[in-house]
């Protein structure tokens, strides 16, 4: 078998890992990294590979599990997004000191321009801080290639290796050759050595010294040496240094404009090769194009000759779009650039799907606590900000601790606003539980609403520990959320379907009253994500809502306060109308219209 396929960067990465003998892969979903593990699972099934691939409860757990496999001599990998790496920062820092036996690839996908992230942080800087080599692919094809090189590098130096793609690599598709994978299985063989694997602080100093020696050698490692991709290396004059997807974009532009200038691509931004740094000393002026921060630039150091992110020649924020690359290259080499005229129109603002149960939950929260403070978290439900029911979103799990923080901050005020915190099921498992335990022991009065739709919807519907299915879709043990909440010491726990809006509002009010005296109250809003439900099920539960034309006076309350995409104002009739193509028949809007103009068809 040898086929040409259009491979997503993340699929290419998965393919590269498996082709090079990865036997264990773990991940926590996060855009743009999520498809890596799904692709590992798909390739495993397709090519009948005997490997272990699973989602973990969070990135730290994913990291530690995969790391143990590498300690036992297997080739393993862990995948996450850049903010996920923050969660796994603790084991990352230590694992680099202790090293590995089998190759260990840590994939952290960055999101310049942030398309779906809280930050634009550069994972390569985490690599600098942790002192591990990092590779920066420019395309799906190169991502697959570097996955293999990463394993070899990792084993040659017994060190974890970071592979850092960006959104445009993860989510591009490229035609490439795919061959059948022949796996050579290794058997786990953990050599006990507590002096190394459980090193005490005294030995860690020794390990740090050894790590520095490794790094110096890696800065000389042949397979990851910078590549001259165009022009001739002649020294003197100007040179361009590229990495990541900026390299791919720049190469097209240099070719198109026929520029005669030496161009180097760095595939290992850290540690930068010593010989390369010396070679760069021979040029008078160097332009460095990389995302997001100036990691290569930093190591070339000489501010008078090197232009890039750190010197202000390239914007330190946002994505390096090909048009920015072209404009900057032209400015650097001194040729004319005509900026194209762009008229930017505001796009449609993202909103929760029609019929999403989160919308009902948020509406209920606003009704139960009109003057409340609403802390929230990371997921589809972040979009509850459109509904005025999300005031803060910081990072995974933070909403619960912030609920405590607001409650404490207001303690000395004359009036204390009710605090409602929302968190999804996946995020609750990921990092919400410690916050809940903390607030129970301190009896903090707030209401936690766990929005349980049994999936990680925003990143593409990966299972959660409550789903009862694993990465392959096979049945597994489902963790019961109410049991966990109870185990944390909460005594008010109610589960309800937010589709039944009036009842749900009442439960929230009850919870609000309870928490004042007794500490946290937890309400679990249970309704599956619509996109996961099968069509027949949806059809069976469809309740047709119609607009009673005699009653609707076009006040627009439902459109502005409930914002279901299926509802809009009809300019001609000046009444609301329901788009039959979008309506999912959840019937929640029938509770929302204050005049009772939205009614169930069979009840009219």
């Amino acid at each position: 078998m040898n086929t040409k396929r259009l491979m997503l960067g993340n699929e290419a990465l998965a393919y590269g890992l498996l082709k090079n003998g990865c036997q264990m892969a773990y991940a926590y979903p996060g855009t743009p990294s999520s498809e890596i593990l799904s692709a590992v699972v798909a390739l495993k099934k397709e090519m009948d590979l005997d490997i272990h691939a699973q989602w973990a409860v969070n990135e730290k757990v994913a990291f530690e599990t995969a790391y143990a496999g590498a300690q036992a001599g297997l080739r393993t990998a862990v995948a996450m997004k850049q903010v996920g790496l923050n969660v796994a920062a603790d084991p990352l820092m230590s694992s680099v000191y202790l090293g590995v036996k089998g190759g260990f690839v840590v994939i952290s996908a960055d999101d310049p321009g942030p398309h779906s992230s809280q930050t634009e942080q550069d994972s390569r800087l985490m690599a600098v801080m942790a002192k591990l080599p990092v590779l920066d692919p420019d395309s799906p094809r190169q991502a697959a290639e570097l996955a293999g090189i990463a394993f070899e590098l990792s084993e040659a130096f017994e060190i974890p290796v970071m592979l850092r793609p960006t959104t445009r690599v993860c989510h591009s598709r490229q035609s490439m050759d795919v061959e059948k994978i022949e796996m050579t299985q290794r058997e786990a063989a953990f050599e006990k050595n507590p002096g190394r694997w459980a090193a005490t602080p005294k030995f860690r100093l020794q390990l740090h010294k050894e790590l520095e020696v490794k790094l110096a050698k890696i800065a000389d490692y042949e397979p990851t040496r910078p590549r001259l991709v165009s022009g001739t290396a002649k020294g003197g004059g100007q040179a361009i240094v590229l990495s990541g997807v900026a390299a791919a974009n720049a190469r097209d532009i240099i070719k198109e404009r026929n520029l005669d200038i030496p161009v180097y691509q760095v595939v290992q931004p850290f540690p930068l090769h010593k010989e390369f740094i010396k070679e760069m000393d021979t040029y008078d002026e160097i332009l460095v194009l990389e995302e997001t921060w100036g990691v290569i630039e930093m190591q070339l150091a000489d501010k008078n000759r090197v232009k890039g992110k750190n010197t202000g020649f390239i914007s330190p924020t946002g994505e390096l779009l090909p048009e920015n690359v072209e404009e900057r290259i032209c400015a650097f080499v001194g040729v004319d650039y005509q900026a194209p005229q762009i008229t930017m129109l505001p796009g449609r603002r993202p909103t929760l799907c029609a019929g999403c149960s989160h919308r009902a939950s948020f509406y209920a929260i606003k009704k139960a606590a009109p003057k409340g403070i609403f802390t929230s978290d990371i997921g589809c439900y972040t979009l509850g900000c459109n509904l005025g029911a999300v005031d803060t979103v910081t990072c995974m799990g933070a909403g619960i601790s912030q609920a405590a923080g607001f409650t404490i901050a207001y303690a000395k005020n004359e009036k204390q606003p009710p605090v409602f915190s929302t968190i999804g099921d996946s995020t609750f498992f990921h990092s919400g539980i410690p916050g809940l335990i903390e607030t129970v022991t301190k009896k903090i009065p707030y209401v936690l609403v766990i929005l349980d739709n049994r999936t990680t919807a925003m990143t593409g519907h990966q299972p959660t520990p409550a789903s009862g299915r694993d990465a392959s879709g096979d049945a597994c043990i489902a963790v019961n959320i109410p049991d966990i909440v109870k185990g944390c010491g909460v005594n008010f726990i109610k589960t309800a379907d937010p589709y039944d809006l009036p009842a749900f509002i009442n439960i929230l009010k009850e919870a609000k009253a309870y928490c004042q005296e007794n500490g946290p109250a937890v309400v679990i809003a249970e309704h599956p994500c619509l996109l996961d439900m099968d069509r027949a099920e949806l059809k069976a539960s469809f309740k047709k809502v119609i607009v009673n034309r005699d009653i609707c006076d076009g006040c627009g309350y439902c459109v502005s306060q409930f914002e279901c995409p299926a509802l809009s104002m009809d300019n001609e009739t000046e009444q609301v109308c329901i788009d039959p193509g979008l309506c999912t028949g959840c019937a929640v809007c029938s509770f929302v219209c204050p005049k009772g103009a939205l009614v169930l068809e069979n009840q009219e």
Partner: protein
Amino acid sequence: MSNNQQIIISGLGGQGVLFITKLLAGAAMADNLPVLTSETHGMAQRGGNVISYLKIGDFSGPLIRPAKADALIALKAESFAHHSYFLKPGGLAVVNSPDPVEDDRYRVFYGDATALAEAAGNVRSENVAMLGFFLSAMKEDSHVFNPDSLARMIKETFQAKPAVATNVLSLLGSGMQLYKQR
């Protein structure tokens, strides 16, 4: 006629932008051409603007620069307003719209693919009708998009559901006619 083609496909979430990108990409690959595609993912849930970039031929960067695209497929009139700036002067645009869409900087053709899809009993496949519309409009510019390869792609994609394949193919055909009748 060059084998290098840069195409923008723009629409709203749920309209099947990625589906037609994949079909076009697959057809080009079947003719042994190198393909690169990219799309904007993100917070946009259903209903948000979606854009996909399709590059066929000798390219290494996944995105298309403004004023460089050879053609634009706009699945809504507003998609044309949003993304026409990607077109090179004189570039080709096909727009799904019952009302005239004009812009003298480009060669713009419009047609009501939604009505076609509705008539065929499936509003959701307006994207396929637009694909057909694009295919015949593009014929004069490039042979990169070969209708036969595309038909083969569609049959392959819906191997398990021959009835769907037949429907899709017939809508593709009416889309092509739409261009001829314009």
